[in-house]
């Protein structure tokens, strides 16, 4: 069975380690915050200038002055800190953020990512995505394996305008966990009940399948 979006987030959450500073993009990545493993502390960075992002506020406690990069009302936590946008991207650029999770339209077998622009459609802008992908040492993409037309989003080369090059390390889709290696996508895990054949058929870029591919554990 293909994973739900929540399950993709849940699988990504298993990559978190105690003390990690993590930047979560909009969409599925945001859901990762709901699955932080018990017993570890993970500090969420929001690139508009906050470390230690807390949950959404309860009604009546919202503040227009306290939002995340998705412009949602949020809260701080004990140990939070606030800073300006230059320092925020400074710590990202300096590699101080341990893990970045973001969505994508396409990922290439070289680790290139396209996520911000579709020619012919209104372009909203890259926001902080180009800074994040160019700087982060450890980037996981959370996305569907195929687009709405059923075409693979894991490609030999991206067809859409790029957000960054050779930067994606790992991809978690509804079907699989894949690592980007110098030789292409390496299949690490299958979603429970999903066959290796299905993943092969839906992956357009070079896919390395070595030995028995285990099912994801939750």
């Amino acid at each position, binding site marked *: 069975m293909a994973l739900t979006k929540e399950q993709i987030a849940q699988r990504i959450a298993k990559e978190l380690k105690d003390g990690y500073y993590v930047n979560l993009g909009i969409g599925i990545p945001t859901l990762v915050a709901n699955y932080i493993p018990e017993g570890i502390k993970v500090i969420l960075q929001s690139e508009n200038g906050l470390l230690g992002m807390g949950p*959404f506020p309860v009604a009546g406690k919202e503040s227009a002055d306290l939002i995340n990069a998705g412009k949602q009302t949020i809260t701080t936590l004990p140990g939070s800190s606030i800073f300006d946008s230059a320092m925020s991207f400074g710590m990202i650029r300096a590699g101080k953020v341990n893990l970045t999770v973001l969505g994508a339209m396409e990922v290439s077998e070289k680790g290139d990512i396209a996520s911000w622009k579709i020619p012919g459609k209104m372009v909203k802008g890259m926001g902080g995505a180009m800074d994040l992908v160019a700087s982060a040492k450890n980037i996981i993409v959370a996305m569907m394996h195929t687009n709405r037309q059923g075409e693979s989003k894991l490609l030999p080369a991206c067809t859409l305008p790029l957000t960054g090059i050779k930067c994606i390390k790992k991809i978690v889709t509804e079907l699989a966990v894949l690592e980007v290696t110098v030789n292409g996508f390496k299949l690490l895990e299958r979603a429970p009940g999903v066959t290796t054949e299905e993943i092969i058929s839906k992956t357009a870029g070079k896919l390395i399948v070595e030995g028995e591919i285990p099912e994801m554990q939750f």
Partner: protein
Amino acid sequence: MNKIYKNADEAVADIKDGAVLMLGGFGLCGIPENCIAALVKSGPKNLTCISNNAGVDDFGIGLLLQQKQLKKMIASYVGENAEFERQLLSGELEVELIPQGTLATRCMASGYGMPAIYTPAGVGTEVAVGKESRIFNDKEYLLEYAFDADFAIVKAWRGDADGNLVYKDTARNFNPLMAMAGKITIAEVEELVPSGEIDPNQVHTPGIYVHRIFQGKNYEKRIEQLTLTK
């Protein structure tokens, strides 16, 4: 020395057609509401606005768009705005999109007297087209130039007569960076206090960067995405 202005109308009175403005804020958070309203009233045209976002249709920079006061928008993300899209597609409005961290750092560079900075953001993408790039420690960086503005217009929580500013929560965002980058910097604050009331250790923007300050009024502080824990 008097940096205190009576109100937004007085503070923006000399902003003329064709001016290059920086406007603080991220989305609708921490935007200089009073100055935007005063600019809608005073009506300069052909403005170039440097701001992370372009507001929504009926708030923030969207109000300047409604009045067709903008020639060019320099931002990192411009969604959430139908009138923006219409003007862009019709060719009335020019747009330059810049990665958010690059935008922030180019403002800071100006305030720090650094003519240019190196950043990896955009390497290998269309953002890099026509730009100088350079390898440091096996990693490629783009050379991006500092930018300044005729007027930087920022919003702070508190300010004093010396122009010192303190921001609240994530309404800080681009405000301190743009405050440093204005040839003339105008700060509107929710509360203007006498000098001496702000602890020198807690000043976010030192007054040296601020030329005009006034206490704003009727802050709406609209929330763009109200999201609650149920």
